[in-house]
């Protein structure tokens, strides 16, 4: 059948009656629409009405609701885990040198705190992780752009890049030690090998998710070449890119801990991984658990304090976030 339509269901014989009196059919040809203030005002009013009827405004949920929905559940979950842990400890399921109670772990951490070393240990790891991540960010972004934009490059290294993502980066540690010895270079090499593929893959996925319509619209308004990358490609790929960055950070942090745990030497400043290793060496289970908790807390903290707000902001601006989140 015809894929054309005659508008608004009005038959081909237009009803003469439907015309408004102030729009005579045989108007003076010289008269323009703009010369008719009444009609213009009428139109503006109609538009204002349509706009008002069809405008959504994003509202943010009240603080109380946010607290109830977002804060209470994890707090309850943590309390539950601590309770079970304490119960297991009190029931002496395992000897206390194997399963210390929450308070013993707390005391071990407090002891480290009073020694005054704990902050420098955390800082050592976090600064290594951050520096490694920033370098991985630059490398991963360049690599991701190359893979996303150039078909031969994608064909050549695209599969390798996604394969590398599933390779546990701890596997690189022995190789890195042989290459670089027990130096910082070893640690950074492992961090980079862990994080760069994630970031690059995230960017590639982000670029692939850009609507073709946006790419064409960009070309139409003159965003070609580097300006296309800057104004369309990167912002368009941002949601995928950010999840790549998040994963990249998780991989950096993991790789860093693996590297610190294995590559311990007096020349290398002590980080959380070395603290863990020290605990193992002294059979100090409270310290081991304490170090694990710290590693977990740093990872979660950076995710919650840096990545989650950025991601939420980006998604909210694009209308991709429902109020339930």
């Amino acid at each position, binding site marked *: 059948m*015809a*894929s*054309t*339509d*005659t*508008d*608004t269901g*009005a038959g*081909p*014989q*237009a*009803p*003469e009656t*439907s*015309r408004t009196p102030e*729009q005579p*059919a*045989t*108007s*003076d*040809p010289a*008269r*323009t*629409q*703009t010369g*008719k203030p009444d*009609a*213009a005002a009428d*139109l*503006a009013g*109609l*538009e204002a009405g*349509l*706009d008002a*009827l*069809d*405008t*959504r*405004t*994003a509202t943010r949920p009240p603080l109380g609701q946010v607290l109830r929905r977002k804060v209470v559940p994890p707090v309850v979950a943590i309390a539950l885990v601590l309770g079970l842990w304490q119960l297991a400890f009190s029931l002496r399921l395992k000897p206390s040198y194997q399963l210390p109670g929450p308070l013993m772990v707390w005391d071990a951490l407090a002891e480290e705190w009073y020694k005054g070393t704990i902050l420098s240990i955390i800082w050592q790891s976090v600064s290594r992780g951050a520096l490694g991540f920033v370098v991985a960010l630059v490398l991963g972004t360049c690599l991701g752009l190359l893979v996303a934009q150039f078909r031969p490059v994608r064909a050549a290294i695209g599969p390798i890049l996604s394969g590398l993502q599933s390779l546990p980066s701890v596997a690189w540690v022995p190789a890195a030690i042989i290459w670089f010895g027990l130096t910082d270079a070893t640690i950074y090499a492992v961090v980079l090998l862990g994080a760069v593929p994630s970031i690059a893959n995230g960017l590639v996925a982000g670029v692939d998710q850009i609507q073709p*319509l*946006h790419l*064409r*619209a*960009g*070309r*139409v*308004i*003159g*965003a070609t070449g580097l*300006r296309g990358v800057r*104004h*369309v490609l990167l*912002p*368009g790929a*941002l949601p995928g890119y950010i999840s790549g960055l998040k994963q990249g950070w998780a991989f950096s942090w993991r790789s860093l801990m693996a590297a610190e745990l294995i590559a311990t030497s007096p020349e290398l400043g002590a980080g959380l991984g070395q603290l863990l290793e020290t605990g193992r060496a002294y059979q100090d289970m409270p310290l081991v658990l304490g170090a694990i908790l710290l590693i977990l807390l740093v990872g979660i903290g950076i995710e919650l304090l840096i990545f989650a707000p950025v991601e939420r902001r*980006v998604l909210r*601006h*694009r*209308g991709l976030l429902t109020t339930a989140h």
Partner: protein
Amino acid sequence: MTTTLTTQTTSKTPKAQPSPASAPGAGVKDARPAMDEAGYAARIEHVSKSFGRAGAEQLVLDDINLDVAPGEFVTLLGASGCGKSTLLNLVAGLDKTSAGSIDVPGGRPSLMFQEHALFPWLTAGRNIELALKLRGVPKPERRAEAERLLELVRLTGAHRKRVHELSGGMRQRVALARALAQDSQLLLMDEPFAALDAITRDVLHEELTRIWSETNVSVLFVTHNVREAVRLAQRVVLLSSRPGRVAHEWNVDIPHPRRIEDSEVANLSVEITEELRGEIRRHGQH
């Protein structure tokens, strides 16, 4: 009715100025002289386009010839899938012709899509400012110019609105403002109002006619809605399907202001619809 290519329009235009071709240089922009010299805003000559691998090509457009005069409003009408979007993409330079040539003397045309195609990562105003920036408008002037364009599409105050906060009609108006921000001499529109409800579409028809009469831009407007084509155009061009060819042309002499329910619009629509049905029927015969 004529099937020949007429570049001189005879209809009474609602323009304030006389036809720009007859008054070259009068308060015009940079790109205008080139266009006035050429005497057309776009010239499509013997254009063919086929898709698919060599040997198994599908001929979509076949020997299209069409001129758009400076300041003219042409609608391109045809059944779904006849190659209207393909032709607009060719004129916009988003795709290459298989044969023939397209000349747009006034520089890169702007193109409005069926969907708004606004960038969701920018506010309404920033979308417009980006087009201004890419056109080379210096930063201090962009904000004011964007405000002016928003005013032109009657969206004063929508500068900071996010795209997803706007209604469908508002989005299309912002998209129109962004297209106008390119300040090109030729505005290509690919069924820009197809997804809107009848009343909103009606309002946007009036806006488009007003803006066209105020800005001197030439418009090539694609639609498969016969009445919309007649309502807007000075000239309606009918494309046949498979392959797309220029099947027929009508000059629309109905004076502005027009409304989609006017009897003249209806009468010409009946005639064009008959022709279009004939075109479609031909395909059922073999």
